[in-house]
């Protein structure tokens, strides 16, 4: 299954986070840890890693790992069970439910973090052999609209360009993408292009993100109006003779209708400005720039996809590229950025409810073809339920058994509280997981299967540019964890499908997957890696990153569609006229705002991995909501205070960040927190479950919401070596810190209750400081000369920060002076606090940076030269620039430079 090189040399693998798919060199130390660096040979990143990737080495510990199969006992507790018993149990119950209620009563919910081989086997079992099409994946929440848009325009889910186009473009248009935080390495490539070749950058986003701050032109559109902007652009291109009429004529159809429709939507600069909330100057500038720049790449991500009109938005963008023939050419293409490491691999195997397999769909000839290839007479013959509908069906009791693999739907689905409730209704909930606790694991599974984690598992992933790379094992298998494909195959054998699931290795599965992609293909399908269908185990082991297609007997195809050859019946692309932009919901007096959701720089998904890194935890440790200053004034919200956000679907209490980066009328909250790491920050629970009619992707960025201040008398924090169970009345958020866990706390209960609580959880070597009259209680317990637990609470207006205590917490043996002053919250002399971490790669704090700026470092480069901050992943550079701007130093230096 997996083997670890005993020589402990560097092993090249691929990062488990976003869809950039960076190559990683992992050098295990032989005792469960590994040194991590970027792989200079990998064409996605050429050796660079972002803050999250750089911190991978900090996330390899086995704390909170699920190491053995577990089963729910009659008393409700999960207990360890032998593999054979766990597998027999699940297979027996699945078979029983299928026999009783039919195959439609069972479903798989998969993940863009599964390897292609795992995905392939799961998809094959459910669709091919159990005969249920109910296989969907968290990619539904991520890029389903891009898939649907691609299929409508191209006849296939094809990404036409490559990352190289980002280096070669003269204009980069980012739509609904905060690449600076979410795809940092690609963003750095774009910034390098800007610096070296002078590429212009346009950012289209309702939110002025760090990406927007780097833009030459920022278009702060009203939410949901992207399609109007691109309809207006199409009209402008037509009216200014920028069209590639030859391309339109020979390789597309539907242009005239699309153009006519676009004129109706946004027939000029003025109409476009009106429809998008932009100024006419902004609109005109963008149109001019796009029209004048043949080498343009339009990149789009969740801001486009997570919409009830996401598919139309994608097509509005594709229309402009098709109309100008700027597709599949060097430096010119539309480009979907995926959010997960193997969202693309999942699409390739067909692991979505509206796909069958290998870029084949539920059409009779394709069903027949796959049936013959798999020798699967019971193959599903129609599309299954997409994620949101799948969980609704579970809630209605129509789906009785669900197997979740490698994802946390109780957090990430829209209307997540309802999803969580639905999980509890299942007759059989099976979860293949790495961790012992997360919100989904807490939602009442019957069986837990311990799956291999990153660093242990072995197979392939595909990144946003269609590049297949190996993920390789560099750590020993812990406990009784097993590869996902093995677990699925064992169930398949017990269901009587042994002959079709007799896989001995990931390589064997990959060969079958490759063979299916080439099966009766002959150029009719974009996805074809037939050249690899007889790859040997050794060659699979040594596989270097490669773009698909890899058709047998052909080499060298980098891009698609420069010369047409689409995958529709007539090989022509389709112009698709988008519906008039309209959000699915309306705001009203009770819900006067719209809630946008997204990611932050140093966390990924539900934090089950990034949340274990202290470096990553220190950038933005608290769940927050961003509010425009005018809205803050209107609703009585102060920066740094708390607010309760309510939608028709749920409620959260978040820290308030007042910022003009947010539009009036809009709120923004990050998606990462869950009940596992915060008391009241399940932002997914706020999101409306309204979906795009084509892609099924939910509109996660515009839920009507209300906000009200929520006051806490006390604030503070706890630090602990072990997880704490905080009192129910407290607001809290957890972050990894050096040596343990940190909890930020706010509360209204009597401080004396906290003293009792701490005594109940801490050892008896306790130090306490109390000034109840002034609203202050601090305490620490010690063991072996180090802090075991500490708790600081104080008046909300002046609670102090945790940096000093965190530094002392990391000390293995406190000096007497450190122990004496710990509860003062003041730095012991010579132990100056460096402030909250800005550069996560090198652990450089804000105070240190500000001091360096004050000492004359007037540019991000100078700061980098002195502190290294910003010189690795570069994702903190926008923040460095802000700090320079705030200090006024850079400005002065700039003036001086001009004068001299």
């Amino acid at each position, binding site marked *: 299954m997996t083997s670890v090189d005993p020589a402990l040399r560097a092993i090249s693998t691929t990062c488990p986070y976003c869809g950039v798919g960076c190559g990683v060199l992992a050098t295990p130390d032989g005792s469960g840890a590994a040194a991590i660096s970027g792989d200079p040979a990998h064409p996605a990143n050429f050796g660079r890693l972002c803050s999250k990737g750089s911190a991978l080495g900090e996330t390899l510990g086995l704390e909170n790992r699920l190491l053995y199969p577990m089963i729910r006992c009659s008393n409700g507790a999960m207990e360890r069970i032998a593999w054979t018993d766990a597998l027999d149990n699940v297979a027996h119950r699945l078979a029983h439910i299928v026999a009783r209620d039919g195959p439609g009563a069972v479903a798989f919910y998969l993940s863009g973090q599964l390897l292609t081989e795992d995905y392939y086997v799961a998809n094959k079992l459910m669709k091919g052999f159990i005969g249920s099409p109910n296989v969907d994946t968290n990619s539904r929440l991520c890029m389903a609209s891009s898939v649907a848009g691609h299929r409508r325009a191209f006849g296939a889910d094809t990404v036409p360009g490559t990352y190289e186009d980002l280096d070669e473009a003269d204009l980069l248009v980012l739509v609904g993408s905060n690449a600076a935080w979410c795809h940092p390495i690609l963003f750095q490539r774009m910034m390098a292009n800007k610096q070296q070749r002078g590429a212009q950058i346009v950012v289209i986003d309702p939110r002025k993100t760090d990406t927007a701050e780097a833009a030459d032109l920022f278009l702060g559109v009203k939410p949901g109006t992207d399609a109007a902007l691109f309809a207006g652009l199409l009209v402008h291109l037509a009216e200014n003779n920028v069209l590639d009429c030859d391309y339109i004529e020979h390789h597309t159809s539907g242009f005239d209708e699309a153009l006519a429709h676009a004129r109706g939507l946004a027939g000029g600069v003025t109409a476009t400005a009106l429809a998008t909330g932009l100024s006419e100057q902004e609109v005109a500038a963008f149109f001019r720039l796009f029209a004048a720049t043949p080498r343009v790449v339009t990149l789009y991500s969740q801001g486009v996809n997570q919409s009830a009109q996401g598919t139309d938005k994608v097509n509005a963008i594709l229309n402009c590229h098709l109309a100008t023939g700027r597709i599949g050419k060097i430096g010119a293409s539309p480009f979907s950025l995926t959010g997960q490491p193997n969202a693309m691999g999942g699409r390739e195997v067909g692991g979505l409810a509206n796909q069958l397999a290998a870029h084949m769909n539920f059409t009779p000839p394709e069903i027949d073809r796959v049936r013959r290839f798999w020798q699967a007479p019971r193959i599903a013959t129609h599309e299954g339920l997409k994620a949101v509908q799948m969980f609704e069906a579970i809630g209605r009791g129509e789906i009785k058994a669900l197997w979740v693999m490698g994802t946390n739907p109780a957090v990430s689905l829209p209307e997540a509280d309802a999803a969580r409730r639905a999980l509890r209704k299942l007759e059989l909930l099976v979860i293949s997981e790495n961790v012992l606790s997360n919100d989904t694991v807490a939602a009442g599974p019957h069986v837990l299967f311990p799956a291999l984690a990153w660093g242990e598992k072995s197979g392939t992933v595909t990144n946003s540019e269609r590049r297949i790379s190996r993920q390789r094992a560099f750590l020993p298998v812990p406990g009784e964890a097993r590869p996902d494909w093995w677990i699925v195959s064992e169930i398949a054998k017990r269901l009587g499908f042994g002959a079709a699931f007799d896989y001995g290795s990931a390589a064997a599965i990959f060969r079958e997957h490759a063979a299916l992609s080439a099966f009766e293909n002959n150029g009719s399908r974009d996805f074809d890696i037939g050249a690899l269908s007889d790859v040997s185990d050794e060659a699979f082991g040594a596989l270097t990153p490669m773009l698909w297609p890899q058709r047998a007997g052909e080499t060298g195809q980098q891009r698609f569609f420069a010369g047409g050859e689409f995958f529709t019946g007539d090989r022509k692309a389709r112009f698709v006229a988008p519906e008039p932009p309209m959000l699915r919901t309306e705001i009203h007096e009770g819900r006067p705002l719209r809630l946008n959701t997204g990611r932050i720089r140093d966390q990924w998904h539900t934090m089950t991995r990034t949340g274990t890194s202290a470096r990553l935890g220190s950038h933005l440790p608290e769940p927050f909501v961003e509010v425009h200053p005018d809205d803050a004034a209107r609703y009585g919200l102060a920066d740094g205070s708390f607010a309760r956000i309510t939608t028709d679907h749920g409620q959260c209490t978040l820290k308030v960040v007042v910022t003009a980066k947010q539009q009036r009328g809009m709120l923004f909250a990050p998606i990462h927190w869950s009940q596992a790491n915060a008391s009241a920050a399940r932002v997914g629970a706020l999101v409306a479950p309204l979906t795009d009619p084509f892609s099924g992707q939910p509109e996660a960025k515009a839920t009507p919401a209300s906000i009200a201040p929520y006051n806490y008398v006390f604030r503070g924090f706890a630090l602990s070596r072990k997880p704490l169970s905080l009192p129910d009345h407290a607001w809290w958020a957890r972050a990894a810190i050096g040596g343990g866990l940190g909890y930020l706390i706010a509360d209204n209960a009597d401080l004396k209750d906290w003293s009792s609580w701490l005594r109940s959880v801490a050892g008896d070597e306790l130090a306490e400081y109390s*000034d109840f009259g002034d609203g202050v209680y601090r305490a620490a317990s010690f063991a072996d000369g180090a802090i075991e637990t500490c708790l600081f609470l104080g008046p909300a207006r002046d609670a102090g920060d945790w940096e000093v205590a965190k530094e002392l917490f990391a000390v293995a043996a406190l000096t007497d002076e450190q122990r004496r002053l710990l509860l*003062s919250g003041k730095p012991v002399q010579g132990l100056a606090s460096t402030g909250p971490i800005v550069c996560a790669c090198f652990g450089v704090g804000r105070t240190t940076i500000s001091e360096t700026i004050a000492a004359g470092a007037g540019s991000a480069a100078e700061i980098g030269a002195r502190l290294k901050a910003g010189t690795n992943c570069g994702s903190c550079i926008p923040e460095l620039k802000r700090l320079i701007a705030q200090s006024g130093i850079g400005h002065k230096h700039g003036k001086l430079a001009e004068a001299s």
Partner: protein
Amino acid sequence: MSESLVIVGNGMAAARLVDELARVALGRYAIAVIGDEPRLAYNRVLLSSVLAGETASHEIELRPASWWRDRGVTLKYGCAVSEIDVGRRELKIAGEESVGFSKLVLATGSSPLRLDVPGAGLSGVSSFRDSRDVDLLLALAAAKKRVVVIGGGLLGLEAAYGVAKAGAPVTLLHLMDRLMERQLDAPAAALLKSLVEKKGIDVLLNANTARILGQSRAEAVELADGRQIDADAVIFAAGIRPNVALAKEAGIAVNRGIVVDDRLQTGTDDIFALGECAEHRGICYGLVEPAYEQAKALAQHLAGRSAAYQGSVVATNLKVSGVNVFSAGEFLATDRSEAIVFSDVRRGTYKKLVIENGRLAGAVLVGDTADGRWYLELIRNRENIAGVRRDMMFGRAAASLAAAA
């Protein structure tokens, strides 16, 4: 010719008064100091250190003979004044000529309270007050005699520590349910108990001494509850009594102590009193610091300057090596006050600051007493502490750092 000023008693108060007078009224008085202890004035506070072997006996002398000589002081030590003749302005001294005075200062100090229990007069029962007591205790310790100290206040703790340090097994008996109950709250006293126990002293609380058993020598102490503690020697350290007999017999007004006004003058003109024998505004102080403050005020007055002693805000410091205890002011929080408390029992630290009306009213410190002086200043100055409240527990340095930030 200079006016004659006689000081009765050659303890710490007397020495300080001479020092102060030399500063403000040099040559105005011909000073004579008459004391019954057979040696130069010494620092009584350090007797426990001598007992503990941490300081040599001769090192605790306050001033060398030459110092007294240089200030023109006639020193008569080892002489007991037997009578004050107020009318004739004369002091009678046993076996010597009478000494006349123009002004008289009584600095006769105090004596240990001896419990009125059966056996209190047995051989081996002593007190802990002067260097003669120390010599005796050192001899006991050297012989590894079992010693019982009665009294868990400052004096008893210091005596017990000294004897234990000198090598004798020691049991400390205290009548109350906690040590130093007049200076410490319950948690501070509990921590102190554990700290002194670590020094090898057995502490028995709620120990009411019923009698001392023995034929001619003390052999054991029996408590009211019937418990018996074997003892080769018993030290009374259960309080002191001002030495007022001389004044009382002379018709000078006394209460518990010799009553003085804000000028330190007794009810009799030209006769003053200070130190542990004096009672000012109803208070007899048992500590050296008020005596020094009184000496300063009295010297001013004797120099003809206007001066008034207003009473002292006292701080108690326990001098037991490694067991620092400080207490000052209103150390028990009341309905009208708030407490700030810091404790780290394992580290041996307990601190409580009592705040009343925004001012520091009292402080109890065990283990970490470095900031005791600062707290005492704050208590005395009655400054509003709002600006330092957040940080004052962690010391003047932390508070000033915070104030500067």
